[in-house]
């Protein structure tokens, strides 16, 4: 009973939040609604017993991703109203609905037969985090490491793309050049 109540509550909240995200014309609203939606999604993870995933969801999305978006919004001038594309909204909504209906139809009609086997069942008597750790660091060790490298690469790429004067290397410059550069920056600041 509790589960059902929680599910419907959070389903409603998530849908509402995301709906706001895609419909609002205020970027700030959209950001806030998205962040809220992310947190509500983590609720589902907790309901489903995926505690660790829920924690990661809150940390990564609401912690890191939302912070990034917030910085992005500060950089761009998005405080004014966002102009939307002209065009037939019915087509957009219709397409999305059709897509959803078909997917639901696929789920509802049991085309995928029930021969799914549990390859990595959760361990008896172990907490979710422990089980996840066991699977993640045994069977999925290599994908995990690859994902780590991917994140590193993405970080480097983000810094290089967004940073200034990334082609300069202070270690390769001598003292005079650095001094000269400093003076130029100071001049700009003063003027």
């Amino acid at each position, binding site marked *: 009973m509790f589960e059902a109540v929680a599910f419907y509550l959070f389903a409603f909240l998530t849908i509402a939040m995301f709906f706001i995200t895609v419909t609002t014309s205020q970027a700030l609203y959209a950001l806030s609604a998205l962040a809220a939606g992310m947190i509500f999604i983590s609720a589902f993870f907790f309901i489903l017993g995926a505690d660790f995933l829920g924690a990661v969801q809150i940390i990564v999305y609401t912690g890191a991703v939302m912070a990034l978006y917030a910085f992005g919004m500060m950089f761009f001038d998005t405080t004014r109203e966002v102009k939307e*594309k002209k065009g037939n909204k019915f*087509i*957009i909504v219709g*397409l*999305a609905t*059709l*897509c959803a209906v*078909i*997917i639901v*139809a*696929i789920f509802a*009609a049991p*085309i995928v037969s029930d021969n799914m086997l549990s390859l990595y069942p959760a361990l008896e008597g172990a907490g979710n985090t422990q089980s996840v750790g066991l699977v993640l660091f045994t069977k999925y060790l290599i994908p995990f490491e690859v994902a780590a490298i991917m994140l590193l690469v993405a970080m480097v790429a983000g810094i290089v793309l967004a940073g200034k004067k990334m082609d300069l290397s202070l270690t390769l410059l001598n003292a005079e050049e650095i001094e000269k550069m400093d003076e130029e920056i100071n001049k700009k600041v003063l003027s």
Partner: protein
Amino acid sequence: MEKYLYIALFAPLVSSMFSALFTNTPKKQFVGIIASLLIFSAFVSSSILLTHILDGGDIVHVEMMTWMATGNLYIPFGFVVDQISVTMMMVVTLVSTIVHIYSIGYMDHDKGFNRFFAWLSAFVFSMMILVMSDNFAGLFIGWEGVGLCSWGLIGFWFHKEVATWAANEAFIMNRIADLGMLIGIFLVYWNTGSLQYDIAFPAMAHLDSATLTWMGIFLFIGAMGKSAQFPLHTWLADAMEGPTPVSALIHAATMVTAGVYLVIRSNELYDLIPHVGLFIASLGAFVALFAASMALVNRDMKRIIAYSTLSQLGYMFAAAGLGAYWVALFHLMAHAFFKALLFLGAGNVMHAMHDELDPFKMGGLKKVMKGTWIMMTIASLALAGIFPFAGFFSKDTILEAAFAEHHMVIYGVLLFTAGLTAFYSFRLVALIFHGEERYKIFGIHPHEAYKFMLIAMSPLLFLAMIAGIFQTPFFEMVEEILGATEYHIHSHATLLIMLVGTQMFVGLAILYAYKKYASWSSVPDGSSVIENSFIYKLLYNQYYIPYGYEEYIVKPYNELSAALWEVDKKVVDASVDGIASIFYSAGENTRDMQSGNLSTMLKWMVVGTVVLLSLAVVFGLAARYSGEIMSILSGLGV
């Protein structure tokens, strides 16, 4: 021996490819010389093979490689040198060697000198394949190859409209006949399961007569086309538009005899169906008379010789049809010698007269062209069948065969034709070489051909004179596979009367021709009584057969084609264009998709997702309910 077989077969190919290298360059003397040498080497190899066979050696049979092997069909590139093919090889290589050498002189001033040798040698190669192949498929390749080369050589002077027209006519007429030939070959394969001569022919003995009759008829239709028998004869006279050496080699000595060769090669088949053989013989006799009658009045030197070729081919078919295969083959050989000689002589005259072909505009040329005169006279004597020249032995044997087989009508027709042959041959000789020098009116200064051309022709002259002495050794050589029927009239007296009678008849015809034409003084202008008589006109216009073809086949066909062209435009073209325009308009309309606008692209991406998902649903359902769908479909009778 295999070595010589391969040399004989492939030297012409090498020659052709070598000459083909220079087709786009100006005349090069060495091309002609090297081509002639290579063909000569083929001749030498053939001679070695001939002596091998004459000495009673084994038949040389090689299988170079597999050509086709699918299911039960197995066709190798196999070649056989037996008594028949070695005879043909000798004829082909000898005449073509001489023609190659002769052409060096004849084509001296021609721009297409190198190209000519490429075609000519290619022809020899095809002809060698035709006669040496050990199966019908190989024979057909050679058959088509000589057809192609004949097309290229008739239309050699392609800037002349008539030449290209004649080339196409020859090619198309041969295609018509080749259809019959192909059907014949299919029948052979269908019923005997093989195309190899040594398997197919023995197997035919067990087939029923109707099948064999159809086989024989269809194969003979192919032979009719290649050998220009009635009613497919018109192309041969028109083929004279080609250079004269070509006429000598292809349209007198070798290619046109391919049909006779086919009948001789299939002797085991035709022995089983004597009624078809009788038909062949009758047609042959008819064509002999028919062609000779057209030659009587024609005013084109080369066409007269072409008609005489046609007539002699009729003789060969008459002999082959009566079962006298070795006689037919012997006449084929002897005819090749003197007819090639006659044509090459005509080539000399043409050169001297600046391509003038009307013998009425010549006359008295024996003073300036002594060598050519002697050669053409002897060739004509041989053609007429005067003792002791080659034609006497071969042609008289055909007459004897007809007599001995008690086909008196055929005998009578052939005998009468022999008289006509003598008459028109010497009409030609008399008009060209005797009488007043009418060419002076036209301001022509004739000159004798190059000496080496005459020397090149001399082997033919020699053979035209003495080929008769080969009759007995030839008979002994081929009797093993062509049947040992010697056609002897039982009573010596009858034989003697026949021989002397024939000779006298022929001699009288010659004398009459000389008397009538040797002192000819004017160029006919179409006003004399005889020229306006019905028969003259009928003969001169070739019995109106080309006209009839034009009127009743070509014109209706053209009209039909014009009508179908409309259908083609409205149906075929329209549907093709329609398909194209569908794609065009589809592209035109969907070009907006590629607007470069990312959000439009995203939209299309979603559309794609929807489509894929729908497909997933459809296929999923189909897979799940495949049993039910199949039962419904089978219920509908699919």
